């Protein structure tokens, strides 16, 4: 006999459950974790590098880097003074909660305050896979163009922070900041935004202050 069975289950619920376990693991040692996402070339690694250097001696940072086939970015993080674990996704377009779980196991979390996870450069897939981080950060950049919120709404919907990088290039490329921000405002009202340049350092202090405060608040809870 044939029978119709209602299911109504989110397709990625297994990943979501594992993400919650990752967060519980981090919370058990009062470590804050952030998931940094962006398209390739937006400046994720540069932002992380600047952040690690600037917070050295104040915030103990571990880094998890998802890269398709190289460990170049993890080397840069190590050179800047952080403990780094590399996940070679072997062609996968995103990190998922399983990969992060095994990477967390390789870090001495008790000796850290902050874990920065650098996701695979991609504006589509990482949005669907929760990792268990406390904050999601999207790095946008001026040369990518001002239409990105409209083309990748899923990515802009789910983040806590938008960092607008490479603002030193504003005089040289057509970029309507109003149009860009209007898209973000609709998709993600009140989302925290930082305009900065990793190249010149403009705007970085606000981002660093915010991040350091998040780490402190998290440790206090």
């Amino acid at each position, binding site marked *: *006999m*044939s*029978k*119709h*069975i*209602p*299911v*109504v*289950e*989110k*397709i*990625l*619920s*297994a*990943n979501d459950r594992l993400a919650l376990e990752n967060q519980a693991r981090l919370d058990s040692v009062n470590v804050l974790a952030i998931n940094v996402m962006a398209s390739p070339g937006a400046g994720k690694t540069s932002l992380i590098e600047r952040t690690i250097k600037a917070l050295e001696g104040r915030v103990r940072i571990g880094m998890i880097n998802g890269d398709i086939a190289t460990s170049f970015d993890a080397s840069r993080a190590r050179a800047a003074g952080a403990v780094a674990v590399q996940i070679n996704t072997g062609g*996968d*377009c*995103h990190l*998922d909660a399983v990969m992060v779980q095994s990477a967390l196991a390789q870090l001495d979390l008790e000796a850290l305050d902050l874990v920065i996870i650098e996701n695979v450069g*991609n504006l*589509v*897939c990482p*949005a*669907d*896979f929760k990792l268990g981080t406390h904050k999601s950060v999207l790095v946008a950049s001026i040369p990518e163009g001002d*239409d990105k919120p*409209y083309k990748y*709404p*899923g990515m802009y*919907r789910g983040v806590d922070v938008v960092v607008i990088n490479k603002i030193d290039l504003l005089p040289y490329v057509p970029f309507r900041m109003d149009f860009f921000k*209007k*898209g973000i*405002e*609709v*998709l993600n*009202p009140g989302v925290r935004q930082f305009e900065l340049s990793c190249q010149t350092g403009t705007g970085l202090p606000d981002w660093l202050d915010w991040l350091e405060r998040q780490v402190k608040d998290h440790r206090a809870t």
Partner: protein
Amino acid sequence: MHELAVTESILEIAVRHAKDHNARRITDLYLVLGQWSSILDDSVQFYWDLISEGTTAKGATLHFRRVPVSLACEDCGTEYEPGSEEFTCPNCGGSHVRVVTGEEFQLEAIDIEE
């Protein structure tokens, strides 16, 4: 681009629910995909044929229901479908909006044979 992972997840959920109902076979799966969820039905179908082999879901038909994006303006109450480069309310120009539909990404139901 991650349709393999997604398809594996669909299979896992379907087989689990079928087992709960002592199903001999799964014949149909009903999926709901919002326009703002980034999944391609063709790729899911491609992987489905490969990975459902040898399971109770082998040969089952996948039905995709695509849900368009619908936004509701919190200021004036208008419900509308956003344009490709214009998300604000067409009636009052407001940007306080709520996503009503378009982000679904679920397995809604399955048909089984007992």
